[in-house]
């Protein structure tokens, strides 16, 4: 079959930014699937409408997720993309690779799929785009033989992800990669076999800069922080000043807590610091997080579906999260949250929405957390209080 002309998407081969169409062109000579994908995409561009159908349960044996079924509604015209399933492969924490590991992944996908990937998908997985049902098991066998496994999809624990953390960042207040790896391994069953009301995501951010967007994109956001004084190197402060940094304007005046002063020497009223990271971001050589490090736990963020978007909110202002005992305590809390959500959540109700529906105080009682003023931006301003009779449990 002659190649279909694709003038509209070819337009996107031009211009300075790397072109996804060029990526498809790299494969189309040897992959009929990609040739048909180009054709179908050109149809979409001409008609301004997508041509994919979803549905049908596809997957590998024994797993309830990790594969997204996708079918073309133009399969007569583009038979090679009649089936075009996606596989999610659990990424190594922090997205570090050796060239050898990358070549192994590339070769597996060359043999079994379209050769197109996302490095990486929104949740963090390596995404292999486009294969047929028959190729799923062989791909999976080769992946596991090479030490890789599938990520999550559907109503399960989704693949946890982490910022680069202590591997390359001076601000990491806990080991994001270690925690991410540990959670992923501990909860393999929850990852591969959907049994929750809906999805549940973990994201590990090493400091309040939150490079993995945990506060917006994870049901459980674990954001590194510190409790004691910011470490100041006054000699480096002086060097910044000499190099022309306007410390008064760029640091002191911009501190949201107004807790920094400067008169040749920088002083911070650490009890007033809200750990916003601004001063550290501006003077990384002079300022470092304190030594008593841990994390703030926030719960409940999600995109709009179903009841509207939410940001995570504080459920534990500070925890230490380093040694095995602290990991276990954290995981115990997670299990209590899951148990409560499992029992009370409606189908496709994220944990944040459940809390909205039944109330944060009820949730806190159920998972055994005490109410703390750090959990709110202000106390309630409506008088509709549900008082509980003395001595009775919620």
């Amino acid at each position, binding site marked *: 079959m002659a190649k279909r002309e694709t003038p509209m998407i070819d337009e996107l081969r031009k211009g300075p*930014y790397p072109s996804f169409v060029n990526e498809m062109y790299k494969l189309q000579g040897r992959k009929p699937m990609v040739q048909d994908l180009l054709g179908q995409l050109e149809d979409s561009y001409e008609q301004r409408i997508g041509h994919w159908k979803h549905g049908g349960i596809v997957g590998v044996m024994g797993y309830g997720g990790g594969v997204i079924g996708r079918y073309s509604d133009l399969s007569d015209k583009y038979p090679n993309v009649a089936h075009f399933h996606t596989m999610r492969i659990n990424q190594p924490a922090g997205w570090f690779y*050796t060239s050898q*590991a990358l070549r192994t992944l590339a070769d597996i996908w060359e043999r079994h799929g379209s050769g197109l990937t996302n490095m990486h998908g*929104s949740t963090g997985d390596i995404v292999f785009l486009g294969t047929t049902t028959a190729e799923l098991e062989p791909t999976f066998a080769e992946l596991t033989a090479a030490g*890789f496994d599938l990520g999550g999809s559907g109503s399960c624990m989704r693949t946890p992800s982490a910022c680069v953390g202590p591997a390359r960042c001076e601000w990491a207040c806990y080991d994001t990669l270690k925690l991410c790896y540990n959670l992923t391994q501990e909860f393999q069953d929850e990852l591969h076999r959907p049994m929750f009301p809906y999805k549940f995501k973990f994201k590990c951010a090493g400091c309040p800069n*939150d490079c993995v967007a945990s506060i917006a994109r994870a049901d459980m956001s674990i954001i590194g922080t510190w409790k004691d004084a910011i470490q100041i190197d006054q000699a480096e402060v002086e060097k910044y000043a000499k190099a022309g940094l306007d410390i008064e304007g760029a640091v002191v005046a911009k501190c949201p807590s107004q807790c920094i002063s400067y008169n040749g020497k920088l002083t911070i009223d650490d009890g007033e610091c809200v750990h916003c990271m601004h001063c550290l971001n501006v003077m990384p050589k002079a300022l470092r997080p304190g030594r008593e490090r841990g994390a703030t736990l926030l719960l409940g963020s999600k995109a709009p579906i179903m009841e509207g*978007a939410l940001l995570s909110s504080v459920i534990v202002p500070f925890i230490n999260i380093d040694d095995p005992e602290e990991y276990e305590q954290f995981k115990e809390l997670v299990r209590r949250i899951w148990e409560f959500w499992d029992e009370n959540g409606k*189908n496709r109700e994220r944990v944040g929405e459940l809390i909205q529906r039944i109330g944060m105080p009820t949730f806190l009682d159920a998972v055994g957390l005490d109410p703390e003023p750090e959990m709110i931006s202000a106390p309630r301003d409506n008088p509709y209080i549900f008082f509980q009779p003395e001595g009775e449990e919620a």
Partner: protein
Amino acid sequence: MAEAPAKRITDIGPPHFEKFLPPIVKKNYGKWKYHEILKPGVMVHTAESGDKLYTVRAASPRLIAVDTIRMFADLADKYCGGHLRFTSRNNVEFLLTDPSKIDALVADLAKEGFPIGGLGAQISNIVHTQGWVHCHSAATDASGVVKSVMDALMPYFKGEKRLPAKTRVALACCLNMCGAVHCSDIAILGVHTRPPKVKNDVLKKLCEVPTTVAACPTGAIRPANVDGFESVTVEEQLCMYCANCYTVCPAMPLNNPDTDGLSIWVGGKVSNARSEPRFSKLAIPFLPNNPPRWPEVVQAVTNIIEVYAANARNFERIGDWIERIGWPRFFKLTGIQFTRYHIDDFKHAGWTFKRSAHIKFDQD
């Protein structure tokens, strides 16, 4: 759980990340002291030991062929002892210990069509979703819009034009927002604007009626007998075109070439730096789907960036800037028309009403 043959490997999880860390990272793990941006796209991290790790960040279209993965692997072998990483925004980072190799690496990347940049107060890669390349409910393409916008924003990616603070642009092609774009400085969001068209004749065959009814967040879907078919009806006034029903029931399609389009949202952020994280707010309710280059979207995003760059103070993210000047002035400065759609009329809408007499009046 299905029975698996004895030798089938399952539930091993991902490889341990330590296997992939470069030696210099293993040695200085958790002992980094500070970092400096040397030039656009290049930074250096210095460890307490004095070791220095150089990072070169290159753009990536996210959708990449295995050929490109192999090319990245070759460059990692040539310059980085075989190590590299990707970022949460789909950039690729090469990790070097020898700064004298940076220029050659950058030149090789340029030859392959991968420019470097996106560090610090610049525009980083646009996180995005699947669009017409792979998703069923897309109101627009993702990769094509992103490519068109990034082509226009290249000077801000490469650091040729300066910005007051880091600026994060994101795109999702429907309200599902698998990219969770709702806390971005600028979010481009594909929108449907008409209720689903129910395929009554096949609905019962493809879907369960109760599940379909339950899928609707606004309760717009009712069970009904239509023309003798057991099906559902949609109360059109209650529908906000979220495509939830379509995701659980393929007989409720709402993709439409003429009425699907894109909206623009501004002022969100996830970082805690200075101000608290917050949602993006509606700037432009609807722009037409105009492939292959989406000129209306490119123009709208570029305009917002340019007005922001010209007016904001240092360290002010777009949301910080708007908070300082106020929304009326944002609409005035950008020339974006304020419409009835900007005023929230969904649940809890009152939170976004102006509940004071604090109003600015222009003095010119």
